[in-house]
């Protein structure tokens, strides 16, 4: 039986009815029509479903949606500001960091969290932060390049 919950998604309070056993991934995709968040295993192995909860990357396939009440939920749809892509999204576009694009939303969320905490991550720190996001197309290289480029774009070159 569905129940009504209030979730804060990408800065908006949204009232949504869903069965309380549903994962956050399912509610985002099936009840809120936010299909930008992907699923590659639904077992917490691939990271495609990564969203931010209060700024922290979380695999939404392992997280009950009811637990996300009173938390700030951020998905890939919230990264652009009224259609203007974030510096990270722009950097991905420039380096070709997305190929098939299926892991991309999860990668973008993990990297967004990283760049908020660490404005000039080293390549090793980038690798560490993205270790939970599997990509099968790029060999990760253009993803690393994108995160480094975004860091420079956001705060300028490290002095």
């Amino acid at each position, binding site marked *: 039986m569905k129940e009504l919950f209030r979730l804060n998604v990408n800065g908006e309070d949204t009232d949504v009815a869903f069965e309380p056993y549903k994962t956050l991934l399912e509610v985002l995709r099936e009840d809120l029509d936010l299909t930008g968040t*992907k*699923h590659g295993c639904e077992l917490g192995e691939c990271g495609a479903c990564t969203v931010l909860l209060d700024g922290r990357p979380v695999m939404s396939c392992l997280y009950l949606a009811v637990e996300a009440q009173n938390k700030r939920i951020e998905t890939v749809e919230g990264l652009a500001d009224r259609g203007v892509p974030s510096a990270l999204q722009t950097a991905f576009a420039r380096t070709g960091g*997305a190929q*098939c694009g299926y892991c991309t939303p999860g990668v973008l969320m993990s990297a967004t969290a990283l760049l908020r905490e660490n404005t000039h991550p080293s390549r090793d720190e980038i690798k560490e932060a993205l270790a939970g996001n599997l990509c099968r197309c790029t060999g990760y290289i253009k993803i690393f390049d994108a995160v480094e480029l975004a860091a420079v774009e956001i705060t300028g070159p490290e002095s």
Partner: protein
Amino acid sequence: MSSEKGTPLQSETSTFHAPSEPLAAHSSERTTQNFSVIGKRNLKYDWHAKLTGAAKYTDDLRLPRMIYGRLLRSPHPHARILRIDVSRARAMSGVFAVLTGKDLPIRYGILPSSQDETAMALEKVRYVGEAVAAVAAVDEWTAEEACNAIEVVYEPLQPVMSIDEALDPDSEKIHDWTKHANIQKNVLLEFGDLDEGFAEADRVFEDEYFFEGNTHVPMENHAALANWEPTGKVTVWSSTQTPHYLHRELARVLDLPPSRIRVIAPPVGGGFGGKSEAFSHELVAPVLSRLSGRPVLISLSREEVFYCHRGRHPVRMWIRTGVKSDGTITALDFKSTLDGGAYGSYGIATTYYTGALNTLPYRVPRYRFEGRRVFTNKPPCGPKRGHGTVQPRFAIEAHLDRIAGELGHDPAEMRKGMLVSPFSWTVNHLRVTSCGLPEAIDAVLERSGWREKHGHLPQGKGIGLACSVYLSGAGLPIYWNPMPHSGAQIKIDRGGGVTVYCGTSDIGQDSDSMLAYVVAEELGVDIGDIHLVTGDTSLAPVDLGSYSSRVTFMAGNAARQAASKLRAQLFQVAAARLDVPEARLGAAGGMIYDLEDTERQIPFAQAAQLAEAEFGTLGETGSYTPPKLAGPYKGSGVGPSPAYSFTCAVAEVDVDLETGILSIQKIWVAHDLGRALNPVVCEGQIEGGVYMGWAEAVIEEQVFRKGLHKQPSLLEYKIPTSLDMPDVDTTIIESIDPEGPFGAKEVGQGPLAPVIPAIANAVYDATGIRIDSTPIMADKVLRAIEMRRKQHAAAV
């Protein structure tokens, strides 16, 4: 056994001249310098959709009143189905329809020569995970419960799980029609007199190798959404690399006119060969939709994707090579045995591919190939990136490394002295056009510091090299027909918008971007003015699909041809308006202008309006059909391509002699892709290929235990994470192919193959041990190190 003797060609003497006329009109006057789009680091066509979550993959699609399908799959590797009772499932609340094999009994298969599958198993199951029944229900949970309520009574049969078991005449037959044990196919090809070749040789070398199977693991699981309309038309959206072949298979299995079926390939979340033929869920979903009167979505789980497989065949190989003292090959004898899994899939083609490209990139004047494929009770193998050529390339390049060592040659220099010439033919009738391999070898030697490192690094550190070759599209279609392999239509609207219609399926290789770049260059418009309609069998002309690295070459040429016809119309009216001869016009940046006085120009949109007034609605078509290149022998359809890409890779490794753990320090790769239409995209393809190659070399294997897949999840089947990825140094070599669109060849598959033997050869340089099978895991290396220690101890 089908034994065929082909007419040998003299590979060293038969050369031909490059066609003097480039394929498309209007290109001869243009050089790299004055391209406005080609060769630039442009954004991808779909960058915004893929970076904002807006791109809709199949499983993201929602139709009103949509319901969900699930497949019940076999828990047995080999069993007779005695009885299926679906009555309990059918009676469940929320269940709309239940199907079993008997409801869809028509056999199909991607190759005309192996029509051996049904949408769901009929009398037997032949691998764990084979579909047995299907359910459509109000939600996935109910569908799953209904699957569990289906009662299937099996009589288990002895499973056949290895090549040796499959070759045993006493083994249980998987398919009753096989003549000898479980052998599906034997092929034998011979070119030239091998005895003479071996007699001419200074040395003869013989080796055996084994390449373990592995699978694609696209991040997007397969999914299909079907909507059967009351009018009798059906639309299937599917994460497929080959919408055209799915269209054909649906018509066959559903017994419907193809004119009533529409297949749409939305953006595909990775394929690598694993979504190149029809799967049970794609065939079942439309029937569930018809029975339920509702759209039906079937989205596979990750575990099910491991059962779909169609990945890299495990291959056992034997190689015997006669060489002169400088390494030059006098004769090559090669045998392969492929573990095909339970069904044919692309396997006969794969079998031929384990032989077809072995006469490249080195001169092979006499060649014999014997291949066979066996059935086993495992998910069917098929094409994975580099289809059937990756396994023999590992064998040949490791074998050559040994030969170079024993003859006392530098393995790179020896290879350089043996390369085929550009614009030449091989002994098995492959036509080579452009070839930038010498430049590729030089690039990686230089950049890796090969000369200082090879043979000079301390114990435990090593460097290895290998070369490879791949197709820019198969020269022949999968089903015989004389029609084009790719078609494109282009329409220009009055505002200057250009819409390109082409049946290509973008699987992340950026075929959409490729079409946009080619057309934007040809018409001189901004990429932002291009609109694409792709991957839709009703709206776009046929493109055979995203396999065999064919799309840039074939769809690119088709789109360019259509664009060049429109360009001619636009130039005709622009020339009249500007009072300039047509030959003096150029087009770039949304303007058509006088090349000698660039201020004399008119906007593209205005030229389009003038042209529409002159000629009527502006629309043209283009087609591409490869030249007829197949040699005069059976099996010659596999191997010919309008152009070949060439790659050289160097790998530097560290081997921990105490633990056997191998770590890759860096990989240098140079790839001859003809021309980089966009270097960003090309680098991405090369890096992705290198990634997949080293993963196959070092960590990935698809193995089975007691009939069960040992690791059908991402936790157990390890694919590399960001932490595992070694540094890669990429060099693009442009040989400008005379027939490719703007000179382009392939880049999506070729760069994978040389990485694997380069790593094996580096392990030898580091340890003095030749590992003759993949993957090169620590336990294997350690066993080899210990074995050698014991041998040394015994010898002392």
